[in-house]
């Protein structure tokens, strides 16, 4: 299969009305603002080019693309010359051929001639253009001044920079500026000596580069090229799939060489990422081949015994029989399941079907419990649907962007680049976050207002902003009257107007000057289209749901829902956490957010599945662990989740798991939860199976199998094996059949099927008769629930209080290079950037504890103690410390408490009272944990007879 490279039109698409002109005698019409180069490419006339590529603004430096225009002197560059009505263009003539050969002769007089052994051989634009212009001789010779001695920079683990191959077209510098927005590259020097440099002409790894790969993708030669291409050679086929890391849902071309993945290149037509990527999706896919991958099922009687490798038949039969036994001994509700936010929609649907149809109860939950369950509750209560209102592209129309409790440049980097592009066009930014995240101030980006509030006071802050908007008459009265429940509004307006909710009243509590709060509120209300983006810093609180509703109130009060550039947009953490919720992973609702007590909905499932279903809500994860320690919950099926590391209060989780009799874990690696498992079923990566993910803007995108699963089965096949071993008689042969079932049973997915997804590339639900092409933006002329519902959100302080024993407040977050519990990214070269969790602490707090940067410190809360190294920074305010939970050996979650959101039990990761003291070594818990983990990971290979 020949490797088809995506066509490069040379300059970005333009939006003006049609302009007609003639190119080489052919009449065509293109939008005004289109370059002559792009117009020609649209009619298969590919004008030679090297510095032009359609992901970047035209630059006009290589001078290969010169054309002749009748009535105009000279030879203008077609990339920088927009079309004009009636223009007559000639792209070929003897004069032009001579000029192009002249330019190419200059290029090749200063370029290596080792094409046949070059890693870009066959995939190099300089090589292509030298052929296109018919270069046969370099009369200047090769002895003149040149750049052939520059030494290679191999500091970055993923790509190599070879300055000798550089033609100084600046596409990399412009990609780092326009596409990524980091501006880590520049041209160093000028004239002939010009060369590309990272930061202050240092190695890529030590520079400001965030390794997103945009420059490597933009580079026309092998000056910047992926190491995997150098090792394996150019790819021979490509498959479009979706990244399995964060909730942005970047579409990629997996470029293969036979069964071997050579590189992941962001797909230009990806609707969420438009051809951009970050270090994780672009490069950190090596974990699929990592030696830690468990490929054979394993079983053991008790968790202190070593694992025994067994056949699939034996493992599956064991699981089925154990579950039936437990239900016989302890009752139908004694077992449950946890779906994965990292697996596909089809797989999460099957796991909740296994629980509901197979186990006969609703004890199914998902990791969304610990991240955006408050979003589901809050947005459903106010708008009527548990998902964000806009698509990502809507940010391009925002005049004001409010980011609260989120760090997009680390958590959602590709969307952060799109947001930065809008900010650099002049949109205003408000950041509400205890930490000075990068967006507050980084090159060319500066927030108009940063409200560094004390962790846990979100509701007080948002209610105060509402107070300003209502009391200063900034409410969009017409919008509220027409679109919202005016009675609920009146009650809410009266509540927020109370002086007790004024910025002045809460200044002492939040630590933010009232004037700043008033200014931010006025900007949000009057600054034009205003969009709110929020993350786990909003949801992971004891008032997570109240905060989401407070956000919705602000948006409704100012008419900022239902049009481009506005909306309430949860930045959901994982690649399919939205999908996991959509598929009915919560214990209280079926797919499509319909409560299990909804008789009509339940009847539909019962009729389709041929079995009576439990109308009562099931157990949430924390409740399952409580029930386990009570002895009434004995068996669990955990697919693609590591609750021991990711869930709060690790000791409580460990106790719960230890009390169970059949813990089944399905994952790629022996994760922390597997230390307490009795059966380990090997999982498959997103490269090894078909399916769909749904990103944070409700966009359903296809995941396509590019290689056979190393463990033998796609995860959906394993769930089917278990189900059939329990007698459920499932007959799926391809995930598309599962999606047909989902569509059959879920109104918002009615129109979704693989054929439509292949045709359109992606669909944003709801997709049904009312919206056959999907719904980019929701609540356009009315809210899903009819009238927008204002909810009074009274500030109830968390019971997690600082005091003499625990004077500091710990909040948590994530970092660009690592992902969630780090299972995947820790097994890639990303450890170059973040090989251990660090405790960020303010200089004052460090000083009066005698702590210097890099020292080992003990971090204690009333829930537990761990040790890690300090990082002294004024990013955090005095009295606030911060860390990540990417590395199991820090066991950060032994610190977090069992407090959680009042409505959804989403854990209060963001507020834990702690004490920090210099330490001399790992805490007792860490030591006992490591001993247990070592002991539990022993594996005895399958008997030779197998």
């Amino acid at each position, binding site marked *: 299969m020949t490797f088809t490279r995506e066509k490069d039109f040379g300059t970005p698409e333009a939006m003006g009305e049609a302009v007609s002109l003639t190119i080489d005698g052919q009449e065509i019409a293109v939008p005004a603002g289109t370059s002559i180069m792009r117009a020609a490419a649209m009619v298969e006339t590919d004008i030679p080019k090297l510095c032009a590529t359609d992901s970047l603004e035209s630059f006009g430096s290589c*001078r290969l693309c010169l054309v002749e225009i009748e009535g105009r002197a000279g030879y203008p560059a077609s990339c920088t010359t927009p079309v004009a009505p009636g223009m007559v263009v000639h792209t070929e003539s003897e004069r032009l051929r001579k000029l192009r050969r*002249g330019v190419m002769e*200059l290029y090749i007089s200063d370029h290596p001639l080792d094409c046949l052994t070059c890693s870009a051989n066959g995939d190099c634009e300089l090589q292509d253009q030298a052929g296109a212009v018919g270069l046969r001789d370099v009369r200047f010779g090769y002895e003149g001044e040149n750049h052939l001695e520059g030494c290679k920079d191999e500091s970055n683990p993923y790509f190599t920079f070879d300055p000798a191959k550089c033609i100084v077209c600046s596409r990399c510098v412009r990609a780092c500026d326009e596409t990524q927005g980091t501006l880590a590259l520049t041209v160093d020097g000028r004239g*002939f000596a010009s060369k590309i440099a990272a930061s202050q002409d240092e190695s890529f790894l030590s520079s400001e580069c965030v390794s997103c790969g945009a420059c490597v993708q933009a580079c026309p030669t092998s000056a910047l090229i992926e190491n995997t291409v150098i090792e394996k050679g150019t790819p021979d086929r490509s498959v479009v799939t979706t990244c399995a890391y964060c909730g942005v849902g970047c579409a990629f071309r997996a470029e293969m060489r036979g069964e071997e993945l050579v590189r992941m290149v962001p797909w230009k037509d990806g609707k969420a990422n438009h051809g951009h990527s970050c270090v994780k999706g672009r490069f950190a896919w090596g974990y699929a081949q990592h030696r830690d991958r468990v490929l054979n099922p394993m079983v053991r009687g008790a968790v202190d015994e070593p694992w025994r490798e067994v056949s699939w038949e034996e493992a599956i039969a064991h699981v089925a029989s154990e579950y039936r036994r437990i239900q016989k001994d302890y009752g139908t509700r004694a077992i449950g399941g946890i779906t994965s936010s990292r697996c596909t929609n089809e797989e999460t649907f099957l796991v909740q079907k296994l629980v509901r149809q197979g186990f006969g109860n609703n004890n199914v939950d998902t990791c969304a419990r610990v991240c955006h369950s408050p979003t589901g509750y809050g947005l459903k209560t106010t708008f009527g649907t548990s998902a964000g209102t806009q698509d990502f592209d809507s940010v391009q129309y925002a005049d004001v962007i409010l980011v609260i409790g989120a760090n997009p440049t680390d958590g959602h980097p590709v969307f952060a680049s799109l947001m930065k592009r809008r900010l650099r066009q002049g949109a205003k930014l408000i950041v509400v976050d205890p930490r000075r995240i990068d967006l507050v101030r980084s090159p060319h980006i500066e927030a108009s207002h940063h409200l560094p509030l004390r962790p846990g006071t979100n509701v007080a802050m948002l209610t105060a902003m509402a107070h300003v908007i209502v009391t200063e008459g900034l409410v969009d009265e017409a919008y509220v009257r027409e679109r919202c429940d005016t009675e609920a509004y009146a009650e809410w307006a009266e509540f927020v107007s109370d002086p007790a909710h004024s910025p002045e009243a809460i200044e002492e509590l939040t630590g933010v000057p009232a004037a700043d709060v008033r200014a931010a509120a006025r900007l949000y209300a009057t600054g034009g289209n205003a969009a709110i983006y929020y993350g786990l810093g909003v949801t992971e609180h004891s008032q997570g749901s109240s905060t989401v509703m407070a956000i919705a109130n602000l948006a409704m009060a100012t008419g900022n829902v239902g049009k481009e550039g506005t909306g309430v947009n949860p930045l959901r953490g994982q690649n399919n956490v939205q999908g996991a919720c959509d598929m009915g992973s919560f214990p209280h609702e079926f797919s499509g957010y319909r409560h299990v007590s909804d008789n009509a909905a339940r009847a539909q499932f019962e009729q389709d599945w041929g079995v009576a279903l439990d109308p009562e809500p099931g157990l949430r994860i924390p409740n399952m662990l409580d029930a386990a320690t009570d002895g009434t919950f004995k068996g669990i099926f955990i697919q693609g989740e590591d609750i021991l590391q990711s869930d709060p209060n690790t000791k409580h989780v460990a106790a719960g798991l230890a009390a169970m009799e059949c813990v089944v874990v399905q994952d790629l690696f022996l994760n922390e939860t597997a230390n307490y498992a009795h059966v380990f079923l090997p999982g498959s990566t997103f490269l090894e199976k078909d399916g769909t993910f749904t990103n944070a803007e409700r966009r359903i995108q296809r995941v396509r199998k590019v290689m056979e699963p190393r463990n033998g089965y796609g995860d959906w096949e394993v769930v089917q094996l278990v189900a059939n071993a329990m007698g459920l008689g499932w007959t799926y042969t391809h995930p598309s059949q599962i999606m047909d079932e989902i569509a059959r049973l879920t109104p918002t997915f009615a129109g979704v099927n693989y054929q439509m997804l292949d045709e359109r590339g992606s669909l944003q639900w709801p997709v049904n008769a009312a919206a056959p092409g999907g719904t980019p933006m929701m609540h356009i002329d009315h809210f899903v629930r009819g009238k927008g519902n204002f909810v009074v959100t009274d500030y109830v302080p968390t019971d997690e209080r600082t005091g003499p024993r625990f004077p500091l407040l710990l909040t948590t977050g994530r970092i660009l290079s690592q992902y969630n519990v780090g299972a995947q990214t820790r097994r890639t070269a990303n450890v170059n950037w973040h090989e251990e969790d660090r405790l960020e602490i303010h200089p004052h707090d460090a000083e009066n504890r005698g702590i210097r940067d890099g020292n080992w410190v003990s971090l204690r809360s009333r829930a537990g103690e761990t040790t890690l190294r300090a990082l002294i920074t004024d990013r955090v305010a005095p009295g606030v410390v911060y860390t990540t939970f990417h590395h199991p050996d820090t066991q950060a979650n032994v610190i977090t408490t069992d407090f959680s959101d009042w409505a959804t039990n989403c854990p209060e990761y963001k507020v834990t009272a702690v004490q920090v003291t210099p330490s001399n070594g790992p805490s007792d818990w860490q030591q006992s944990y490591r001993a247990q983990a070592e002991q539990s990971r022993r594996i005895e290979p399958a008997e030779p007879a197998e």
Partner: protein
Amino acid sequence: MTRVFVSKDMASVALGADGLARAFADAGCEVVRTGSRGLFSIEPLVEVETDGARIAYGPVGPGDVAAVLDGSHPARIGAIEAHPFFASQQRFTFARCGVTDPLNLADYAANGGWKGLEAAFSLSPQEVVDAVKASGLRGRGGAGFPTGIKWQTVLDTDADEKFIVCNADEGDSGTFADRMLMEGDPYCLIEGMAIAGHAVGATHGYIYIRSEYPFAIEAMREAIARSAGKVAPFTLEVRVGAGAYVCGEETALLDSIEGRRGQVRAKPPLPAIEGLWGKPTVINNVLSLAAVPFILAEGAQAYADVGFGRSRGTMPIQIAGNVKNGGLYEVGFGVTLGELVDEIGGGTASGRPVRAVQVGGPLGAYFPPSMFHLPFDYEAFAQAGGLIGHAGITVFDDSVDMAHMARFAMEFCAVESCGKCTPCRIGSTRGVELIDRIVAKAPRESGALEAMPQIRNTKGAARTHDEEIDLLRDLCDTMKYGSLCALGGFTPYPVLSALDHFREDFGGASALPEAAE
């Protein structure tokens, strides 16, 4: 107490004007420091105020104070305006230069200062633009683009803010008119920019001065401070270059003011529509802006009446290089090259015959005496394969080696290239290497590479002298038609004019001893 006038222009100071001024002060005179009159062969110059008139003596030194004061000094010139070099000039823009104390506001007002601005304020913006159009004023920086049309585009483009940018990067060798005006009559430039601000609706202006002009930078900053009240609400600030000739190109200049590498931007968008910080911007040379006060004060017609063909008004021509009467000669277009070099310039300073004249700085063509009939006019010079540029004329006597000058043109381009576009970045360096081979009569041997058996296609044989000359012409063709801006695009003018008019020098027979590299 006798009042005497001594120039503090950078050239005058370099020739000892400060010492002369001190000597007269020590002798009890009241010394007024002025700009330079603009004829350097008679500097250091002093003008003594005697019964209402100013009697000039020059060149004189500190030792001549007594003889000057008693009127007996042999270098007595009398009224400077009567001196032949000045009598035949039409000083519309440089009228006050050398006459007034540059920073004295009263002096400026007493000599026609602010008349133009007052006239402009009495007119609507469109009327001011119409006046500039009617004057026929064209860009004095070198492009010769009608100034009025540029202003019209900025006026017609609405935006929340607009800017007036003065290009004072004057990097061409042989040009110093901008420097002389900024040091000698800074308020004239300020008045011109204020008028432009009023005409197009801009409230702020920048003057981008090259760092090699310390005196001009200081003069403009002081003048801006003192005249702020006169031009309010229009405000001005000076920005200093940092050693990059390419920032004389208008879009590179804008990038430089914005704090970036001085790289040339592709057009469109035109700066008049999307210029500084993306806002509509008037970018004009010092002389274009300094010509505006006269046009508003005396009327467009007075300006347009002077000139030749489509080149209306006067051009402050700078006669430089190996010339006897080097200096600033403002006259209407149409004067011939020969008149400028032989009659007004007085031939070479070395006394040897004139062999070549470069017009328009390092990117201008070289003209042999056989082309001295050419009238000073944008179109005439263009047809003759050259350009007027910033109207600098550099005279060479017969000792010049034109192959060396062609090489220097390529070397200058290589030193100053911004490095963005291929024809200029790589072409200039290859041009230097190529001319060295031509001059050394050492055409390129068959390269070690071409001789390798693996290289099958490229022409292996050694190259001939004529083939190298043809390659130089091809390179010039690629640079001229391929380059993104005039730096790479015009470097072929001096190279090809030297090759065409002085073919004998390229025989390599009499190359000038190489300068110490």
